[in-house]
């Protein structure tokens, strides 16, 4: 991508001086270059300012707790003792549950819509899916409270317990709210992103790829699974990481169904807490300076987590591209 733009700008032989500069501006290329450059720098600037501000305002908490902030399991405003561990754990567990559910579901739907469904049906359904992606998260929270929570307490929970109750993941009391419920609600929220983006990517796979596979005697499913999906792999990964980013930062819907209890428990039925939820819950009433500073440091931790996970995603994409390579 970047190689194309650099060759374009080098077409014009370099000239110097004000006149040359104005000449350059006259040709649309330079103006477009300037505008897009400014736009890109603004994004960079906002990100830097955000980190800087979080870093600056979390000073009290950073100096008081240091690295222990990451390991401490207590969150106690009364005794001014704050640790991020239960929140980091809750954020990771709920996002993981969400992806475990949403990725197979989303990918299968995307494959059906792009490869198997009639085009008209596919367009109508994907329009509806795009609408789903625009639903405010508090609505998903209400859906969670009124449908998923009772269902989890009376049906899903007991069923899972009777089958998988021997594992620590599905033991302990089931209140209806907890990690699993939050993960399910998150899965419902992020699945439209996976479907929508993956379907678009699958649709861009050249028709020749499918035809070639079919001509070689592959069945329709073989051509889809072995040729089309690997071709679109990078884009599908991208959709998953978009979904992950939304799951990590989701506030409202999660806080309505997770039970808001800063504890680290192995059981998915147990109540937990996420970083975004605790900030939303406690920020307005945080009166102590250290308390406020710790909440802001949690924000910094969430930023860091997103940064690390995104970096890992990039590496993963690079590795798969090098390993398998595109069927070109």
């Amino acid at each position, binding site marked *: 991508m970047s190689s194309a733009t650099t060759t374009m700008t080098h077409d014009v032989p370099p000239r110097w001086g004000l006149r040359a500069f104005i000449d350059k501006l006259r040709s649309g290329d330079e103006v477009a270059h300037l505008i897009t450059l400014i736009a890109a720098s603004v994004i960079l600037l906002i990100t830097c300012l955000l980190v800087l501000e979080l870093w600056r305002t979390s000073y009290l908490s950073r100096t008081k707790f240091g690295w222990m902030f990451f390991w401490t399991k207590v969150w106690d405003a*009364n005794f001014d003792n704050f640790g991020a561990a239960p929140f980091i754990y809750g954020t990771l567990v709920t996002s993981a549950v969400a992806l475990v559910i949403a990725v197979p579901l989303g990918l299968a739907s995307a494959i059906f819509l792009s490869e198997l469904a009639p085009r008209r049906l596919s367009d109508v359904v994907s329009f509806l899916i795009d609408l789903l992606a625009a639903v405010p998260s508090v609505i998903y929270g209400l859906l969670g409270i009124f449908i998923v929570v009772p269902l989890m307490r009376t049906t899903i929970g007991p069923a899972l317990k009777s089958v998988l109750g021997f594992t620590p993941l599905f033991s302990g009391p089931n209140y209806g709210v907890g990690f699993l419920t939050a993960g399910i609600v998150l899965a419902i929220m992020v699945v439209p992103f996976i479907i929508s983006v993956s379907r678009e990517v699958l649709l861009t796979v050249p028709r020749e790829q499918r035809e070639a596979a079919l001509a070689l005697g592959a069945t329709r499913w073989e051509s889809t699974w072995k040729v089309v999906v690997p071709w679109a792999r990078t884009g599908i990964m991208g959709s998953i990481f978009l979904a992950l980013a939304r799951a990590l930062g989701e506030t409202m819907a999660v*806080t309505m169904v997770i039970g808001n209890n800063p504890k680290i428990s192995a059981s998915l039925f147990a109540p937990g807490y996420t970083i975004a939820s605790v900030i939303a819950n406690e920020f*307005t009433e945080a009166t102590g300076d250290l308390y406020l500073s710790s909440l802001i440091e949690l924000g910094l931790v969430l930023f860091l987590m997103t940064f690390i996970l995104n970096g890992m995603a990039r590496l993963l994409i690079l590795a798969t591209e090098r390993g398998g390579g595109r069927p070109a």
Partner: protein
Amino acid sequence: MNMKKTLVAVSLVLGAVAMAAAQGGQVLLNAAGATFPYPIYSKWFDVYHTAHPNVQINYQSIGSGGGIRQLQAGTVDFGASDGPMSDDQLAQSKFKILHFPTVLGADVPSYNISGVSGELNFTQKALAGIFLGSITKWNDPEIAKANPGVNLPSTDIVVVHRSDGSGTTYIWTDFLSKVSDDWKNKVGKAGTSVNWPVGLGAKGNEGVSGLVKQTPNSIGYIELVYAAQNGITFGKVQNAAGKFIKADLASVTAAAAGAAKDIPADFRVSITNAPGATAYPVSSFTWLLIPAQIQEAAKRDAIKDFLKWMLTEGQKYNEGLTYAQLPKAVVEKELKAISLIQ
């Protein structure tokens, strides 16, 4: 031509309005803070504005913590809080801040127990034990002895508390820390959010009451105003005199009256577990936070006049919105304290 005429007309009207405003000394007051008294505050500010068109009070219910912060930062003219400011907070403040109690609030225990529909009695020990996690079954002797004849199940108690920082939690934990040494040692003093030993957190009164309604054998605490407006059944709580009292406007005002005799000059007083046979023990004032020195004379006069109105006329609007009235003794002390604003 027409356009020009309209413009002239508009500017004349605008000029007239501006002059009227200048003559009337239009005063705009900004305030921010507690969410619990927001319904009565917005009613007061509205009625007061109708009676005094030149004074407009703009109140943002962003939470007590935010109210205190904005007041200290000088971005609002006065603040509001469900808990009194601590000595530390007052010491940190660059200027002197006065507390004025405005209305009374209370928390009630709401529960959902299979097979129990009536109003339960809760001893102080029972409530502390349930929220500490040391009482785990509904048929625990501490609960059963206060409720003879009620068939309590042997099921586990599910505790529900507020997840968002709130004045409601402040009142509830203030009560628990007063009546239980265990609570005071383990969880500590009153706070808008504390490190709960047990339970599920839900956001807002609606979140707690919703989760209690949904979850069998659960108990949570909600604001009296919210419970009354939504017809939610709640239990009686044992007061300092050992009586089981149901929260209502009269028993909450009685709690304030019981505590009024010893009210300190700065009005920073907790009235949980107040003396008096009819006092409801989980009650509290909510306060306006006013700077002791206000530079602008117009603003100072407006605030002083509003306070006077709020303590006399304004109190009449309380009961319509199910807020308990301040006892007379407190009103008299506050009216005197208004002169401290300079």
